[in-house]
């Protein structure tokens, strides 16, 4: 009997998790809760080659608090673990730290107004399969420059390999929010970005979110050439 009860509980838990879904407001992404910029003078901590190192030559990207003019950036809402504690964890700072965050399927791009974002396929009652109306999940917004890819999976793939793009690439992560979804799909879902708590929890509050430059990992051939160059230089100096 005890086994039966445990088995039933497991089935219920699995069923509950499988059918957990809720709605968020992915229509108006409030600039009171989220803006971003790309004027950091250090490489991203996600950068496999130069994490946290200063960028020679000073600031990259635009200067000031507003950086994004025109098109060229993408954003994705990621869903973390269930968190009913009301205490927000720190945002991930490494690629390994992103491994536990699931893709919500909700994407945004940059607005024509500097620093602001606009939803792709906006929907005030957008469904998120990983969230529910009965418990809170951690949430973050990741942002990247378009040369890393137009989808989160493509960008993550390039970040992981440290290659696959041309030009200067940027990547960043917002502060963490912790939110319940709502159960109705035809009405406004939970507010995702805001400057204070809501009835559904703590939305993402992350003004001037920094997207730092990502340095590509040098390819073996490039490294070999660099080593050859160094050796040549050494030889040249000795002969002198």
């Amino acid at each position, binding site marked *: 009997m005890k086994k039966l009860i445990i088995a039933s509980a497991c089935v219920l838990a699995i069923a509950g998790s499988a059918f957990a879904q809720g709605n968020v407001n992915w*229509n108006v*992404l409030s600039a009171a809760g989220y803006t971003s910029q790309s004027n950091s003078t250090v490489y991203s901590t996600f950068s496999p080659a130069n994490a946290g190192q200063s960028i020679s030559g000073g600031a990259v990207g635009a200067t000031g608090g507003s950086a994004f003019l025109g098109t060229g950036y993408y954003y994705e809402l990621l869903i973390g673990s269930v968190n009913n504690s009301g205490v927000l964890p720190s945002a991930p700072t490494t690629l390994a730290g992103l491994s536990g965050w699931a893709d919500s399927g909700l994407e945004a791009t940059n607005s024509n*107004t500097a620093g602001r974002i606009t939803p792709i396929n906006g929907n005030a009652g957008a469904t998120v399969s990983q969230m529910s109306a009965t418990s809170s999940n951690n949430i973050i917004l990741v942002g990247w420059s378009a040369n890393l890819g137009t989808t989160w999976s493509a960008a993550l793939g390039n970040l992981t390999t440290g290659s696959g793009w041309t030009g200067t690439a940027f990547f960043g992560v917002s502060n963490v929010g912790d939110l319940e979804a709502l159960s109705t799909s035809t009405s*406004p879902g939970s507010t995702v970005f805001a*400057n204070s708590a809501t*009835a*559904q929890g703590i939305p993402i509050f992350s003004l001037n979110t920094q997207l730092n430059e990502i340095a590509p990992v040098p390819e073996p051939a490039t490294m070999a050439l660099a080593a050859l160059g160094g050796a040549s230089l050494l030889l040249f100096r000795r002969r002198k």
Partner: protein
Amino acid sequence: MKKSLLIAAATLAVGVISSQAGVYSQNVVGYANVPTAANTTYLLSVPFVIGASNGANEIWPLVGGNPTLPDFSTLLIWNGSGYTGYQSDSTSSSLWDDNGGNPIPNAPTLPVGKGFFLIPSGTVTSTFAGAVAVNVGTSNVMHLTGNVTYLVGASVPYAGSITNGNPATGAGGPNLTSLAGLPDFSTLLIWNGSGYTGYQSDSTSSSYWDDNGGNPIPTAPTISVGQGFFLIPSGNFNWTVGL
């Protein structure tokens, strides 16, 4: 987690009657104070004629150069199947941006009787001040098509039962009963802060309304001044609101 809608009772402030040669008109003006908490979702409607067009920039104007609605508040307007979103922005010439934060030249309009969602980015009390849309003793009629979803509000400043209102006698109210032509099994959805409480019209119910399961309820649903709601008539309906 449910939040009750906090809407203050309105005061119909002044009634001024004036007459001109052969023209009889009444100017009924008033205001409603609607307190709203930061980052909370409200379903509202503006029960007064405000400015030239009931533009959102006229409803929430700049006063002394300062916005009367906190910047980056969200406005969601029902378009028949979803919502068109806007953000308030005191740096925009219209005081409003589109949903991506891009300034737009003309603010969205919120005509009397139209419902909308407001999510203020800060706690604020909105004061809707203007003229009542209709004259005493006349009516305000909207032609609603059957089985279409409308996001509406009472077109007069009114708090109380949705069944009250008699245009013939001048009694105020939204007048939503079968006696006024509302087809049976029409649906009323009232926002409760996180979802809807549903009702069905029923001419055989003592209150003219059932709950969402078709069970007669003793008292019809009520609304507050400036409250919006969804109405899905089960057939064509000429909605006559009494002042």
